[in-house]
């Protein structure tokens, strides 16, 4: 839908007021573009050994070559694909589970609420990375298992973020009207409650993507994440640290990529919160 002039002007104002958010969204868009067009953008096959190991950056290999003579830039580009794939899919799954559980807990209350939220509280007792390490260790290192581990550890946050506004929404008049009109629980939750509480969930999901990128990188750094031939920034960093004094780019570049991606999603999340939360407008 094309924004009307007044909406466009409004967006422009928002953008000027929230430069950090705009930068974050720009980084996210850039990352998605890189990930989608990795095949075209990458100068070399990320697993091909194209030159002398540990070669410093030059005009042909702008970020140099790694310990097996693979092009670091190409590996970073394909690493973006893995980082985004893992984080988006895992957060997608945790949204499905977390929103469902949060809606049920908040809407039904009572035993269901207690049961769901105590399980979520139990999961909160462990730091999410430690839990992810345990799960990935249990399931074994693979792309699918990393996604499952991250989805599981990020679900409680989404569930909690969802439940709180549902508690308020279920007492509202529009819910009472819908119930009076004969709508069932599922319809009320999905058609009436959810659209009214979606803003904080979107914000949380964006921030959770940043967490997921960090967890994926951490797991891969420890050797519990994705395995070759897939390229992961965490994996690159984990191997690169063994060559810190000989080719520090092998650690610095993937480290910088992780930092940039995490910052980008966090800034984008902040920006979205400012836009979507009317209480914060103008703050």
């Amino acid at each position, binding site marked *: 839908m094309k924004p009307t002039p007044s909406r466009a002007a409004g967006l422009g104002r928002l953008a000027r007021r929230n430069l950090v958010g705009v930068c974050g969204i720009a980084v996210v868009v850039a990352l998605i573009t890189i990930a989608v067009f990795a095949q075209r953008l990458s100068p070399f096959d990320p*697993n*091909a*050994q194209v030159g002398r*190991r540990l070669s410093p950056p030059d005009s042909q290999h702008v970020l140099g070559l790694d*310990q*097996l*003579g693979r092009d670091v830039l190409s590996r970073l580009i394909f690493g973006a694909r893995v980082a985004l794939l893992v984080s988006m899919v895992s957060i997608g799954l945790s949204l499905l589970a977390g929103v469902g559980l949060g809606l049920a807990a908040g809407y039904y209350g009572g035993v269901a609420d207690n049961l769901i939220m105590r399980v979520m509280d139990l999961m909160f007792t462990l730091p999410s990375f430690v839990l992810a390490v345990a799960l990935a260790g249990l399931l074994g*290192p693979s792309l699918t298992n990393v996604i499952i581990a991250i989805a599981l550890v990020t679900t409680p946050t989404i569930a909690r973020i969802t439940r709180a506004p549902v508690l308020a929404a279920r007492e509202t008049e529009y819910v009472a009207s819908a119930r009076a009109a004969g709508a069932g629980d599922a319809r009320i939750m999905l058609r009436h409650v959810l659209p009214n509480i979606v803003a904080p969930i979107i914000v949380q999901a964006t921030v959770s993507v940043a967490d997921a990128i960090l967890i994926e990188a951490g797991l891969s750094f420890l*050797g519990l994440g994705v*395995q*070759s*031939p897939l390229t992961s920034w965490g*994996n690159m960093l*984990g*191997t690169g*640290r*063994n*060559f*810190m*004094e*000989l080719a520090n780019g092998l650690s610095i570049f993937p480290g910088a990529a992780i930092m940039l991606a995490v910052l980008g999603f966090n800034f984008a999340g902040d920006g979205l919160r400012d836009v979507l939360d009317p209480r914060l407008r103008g703050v």
Partner: protein
Amino acid sequence: MRENGHEAGKRQGRRRGLTRRQLLKAAGAAGLMNLTGMRAASALAAPAVLIKRGGTLNWAEVNDPISFDPHNRVNASATVMQRMVYQCFTRQNPRTMAVEPALATKWEYTKPTELVWTLRQGVTFHNGRPFTAEDAKWNVDRALDPRTGSPFAVWYEAVEKTEVVNRNVVKMTLKRPDPLLPGKFGAMRVLGFAPGGSDPRSLASNPIGTGPYRLVEWAPNDHVTFTRNERYWERGVPYIDTLNVKFITQEDPRIAGLRAGAIDFSIVSADGARRLAGSPNLKFIKGVHGVFTVIKFHQRFPPFRDRRVRQAMNLSIDRKEIIEKALGGSGVIIGPIVYGWEDYGIAPEQLPYKVDVDQAKKLMAEAGYPGGFEVTVVSLPEGHPAAFYPTVATAAEHWKRIGITVRIQQLELGAWLQRNNTLDYDMLVGNRGFRGDPIDVLQPHYHPKGSDNPLGYSNSQVQRWIEQAAVEPDRLKRRDLYLKIQLKVLEDVPWLLLWAPIENYAMQRSVMGYDQVPFDSFKDLIWTTWLDR
């Protein structure tokens, strides 16, 4: 940098400015040792310098031993740790590789099929119990019992029975002559002696042996602590009181520990040694290591049954590049026997390896695979110090040129060992260790009945030569047979023989006496290592 004890002594004298009184004291102590016949173990002895006893050596190893069961070892890391605790009839001198007495003082073939061991007297186990012929028999019997499941029991298949003659003499009756048995018992890969009748499950975690160190504590995958065996039979050694062995797979923390002084002694990669080169507190030694890396083919993957496919794969890899990529150049090309193992191996420059992609493509086409094929190889993970992953990843790059696509399955050590020991793979990258005699590498791999012959490789000539060599008492005649076997095997390519590492050890300058990288990779020199602190 290599540094022998004499040089170390001179340096120490210069640095510390030894007083005349200290020197006289040292000379007096040496004289007293000679008078009382107290000599440090002859074969292991470091040159006479002012050796300091005691202290704790913080030693970093790459892999956990997994088990201390002395009769069922499956990994080299177990052997290194177990050698601190257990001993056997013989041992191999870490400097010369010669077979020398350990718990047996002599051995004699009273006839070609009868071997009589005379045991050392006055040896006690760590629990104070004396070592006797009964103990030796119990250990040999358990190691060879099929129920024990030792992957190395096959080495001793010539042994029919072991009998106790008296408290200090054991007699072995053989099914067939095996002149190499004393060396096989010395390789210590297979068995160590624990008190007879011990509970094997208990030994696996609470070992009791006769070795120079006894186990104090083992926290799997974290550390092992050994303390000096006060009752050790070999007088004068070991010098260090406590060995604190930390298991640190990743190199980076080992490097950080060496720099900070928290680790005294560790193996490092060639790249690691380069990283540490400027550290003033460290010194380095390096040398070729008898463990060699290979790629194994399994007959269950049909293309590998065709010799032309294996030859094509052999012709299309560039071993020098593999060594460069996997080891930072710190390795040597090998044949079936690593060059440097006495005079049995073929010198790297004489090995008939060449890169000929056109010929390789021709062979693939002749074998019916002009378009190549796809195969999965089992490896340890990228970043593991064994360097299997970069080895096979580089080889995979080379094989692309003849149409072969390789999927690399990376497994943790335990899972990899399981697959390796049960021969459960199409292709596997792994390594093999030094043995008591080359026959112990050649027989299991290239004899049709060999225990580690996943290809089912069978060549009647090779089989005959192996069988002849196994009973040939004349070392030179054996060597000739080994050469013939090697040349034939190089032609048939039942395995892809790749490289042996040039190992680098980094240590604090205060670690003295560990001046050589032993070819067999075991750390027996720790017994004569001392700390100048």
